């Protein structure tokens, strides 16, 4: 059995533990008359921080504004999103057209030697046949049209302000300074060569560089595709 004072003490301790916010007798005694007269429902006029011995306020759940990000970093920018969307769409077309362009480009390179005149200059040209020459010219024409369409989508894709380019894209763009002029020069030299062969002449002068320029252009173009794909991890056999 517990004695009555002990039971009282136990009950008091339980109440104090679970209801620590209940005012105790000491606090009531130390309160000023004006505080005692205030209605119970009215909130205390003084903030807890203003009271000298008040406990520190409970820390609030952290919010994004507490972290110190700038407004620029946290604010939505629908215009930028639209710009990025347009950019991505254009570059997707650029990528697809670029891969398609590679096919006639390689085919033109393969058919190039078949379109080359054989025999000595001044003698009637037996090879190539007109069909070979026309086929090579058609492949060259298709390559040129596709190449400049591909380039258009890369050049016209919107730039994102404040972006400093780094990584594989720089090599990809740098190689355009080789295959770009190459793709202007190759068809011009090709037309010159075609005209010379059509006139029964063996290709001569600057037109004779048509083949070499085409090889360099194709190599730079291929390197440009590899550069933007680098580093390549071939593991198609893995799921």
């Amino acid at each position, binding site marked *: 059995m*517990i004695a009555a004072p*002990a039971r009282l*003490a*136990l009950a008091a*301790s*339980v109440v104090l*533990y679970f209801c620590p916010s209940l005012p105790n007798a000491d606090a009531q005694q130390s309160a000023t008359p004006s505080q005692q007269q205030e209605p119970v429902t009215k909130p205390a006029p003084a903030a807890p921080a203003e009271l000298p011995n008040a406990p*520190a306020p*409970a*820390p*609030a*759940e*952290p*919010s*994004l504004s*507490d*972290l*110190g*990000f700038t407004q620029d*970093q*946290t*604010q*939505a*920018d*629908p215009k*930028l*999103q639209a*710009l*990025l*969307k347009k*950019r*991505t769409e254009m*570059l997707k077309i650029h*990528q*697809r057209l670029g*891969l398609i362009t590679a096919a006639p480009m390689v085919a033109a390179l393969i058919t190039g030697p078949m379109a080359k005149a054989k025999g000595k200059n001044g003698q009637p040209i037996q090879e190539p046949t007109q069909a070979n020459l026309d086929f090579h010219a058609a492949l060259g024409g298709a390559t040129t049209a596709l190449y400049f369409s591909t380039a258009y989508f890369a050049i016209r894709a919107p730039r*994102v302000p404040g*972006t*400093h*380019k*780094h*990584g*594989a*894209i720089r090599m*990809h763009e740098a190689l355009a300074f080789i295959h770009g002029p190459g793709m202007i020069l190759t068809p011009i030299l090709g037309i010159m060569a075609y005209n010379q062969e059509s006139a029964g002449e063996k290709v001569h002068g600057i037109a004779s560089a048509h083949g070499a320029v085409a090889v360099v252009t194709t190599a730079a173009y291929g390197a440009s595709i590899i550069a*933007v*794909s680098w*580093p*390549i*991890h*071939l*593991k*198609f056999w*893995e799921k």
Partner: protein
Amino acid sequence: MRFLSLFVLPFFALPAVAQPDAQWTLMQSTLSYHMSHPMHEVDGTSHAAKGKGTCHEGQCDFLIAAPVKSFDSGDTNRDLHMLETTRGAQFPMVVVRTRFPQADTASTTLYVDLEVQFAGQTAHYQHIPFERTAQGNMVHIVGTIPATCSDFKIDRPSFLTVPIKNEIPVKVDMTWHSN
């Protein structure tokens, strides 16, 4: 009287052993997502995350956030594409929230439930393990969030017409300071 002490003293002792309120600040962080493509293995890393944690009445609330555009994969073109595909201009922050018992802050392995806001979507990850090592007031946390593109309704980007894998696990390496 001894009988009384047995019952009464624990009530007074309990508040004394309860853990005090604590505030945590993220000092250093490395968040990196991993993207798999048959031709590519890419990691995009951000060191720009900021975070804060508060522990009160035995519960801890943590908030970590990083700008989506701060992730660098080593290629501007890829990063801009990532920004577009994750709607990063419209929803510029990736925000992670978690709540766990304060007692867990002393464990070597923390299992936490995460709420991740990213790309305008909210995903929940349950019971994610994080390894914890403490050194003075500093605590080092390492773990991986098993995120996927579909969790955030992200259309998987493709390269050479082949899409990336759905899984984009995010490695988390953070150093927190207790104030």
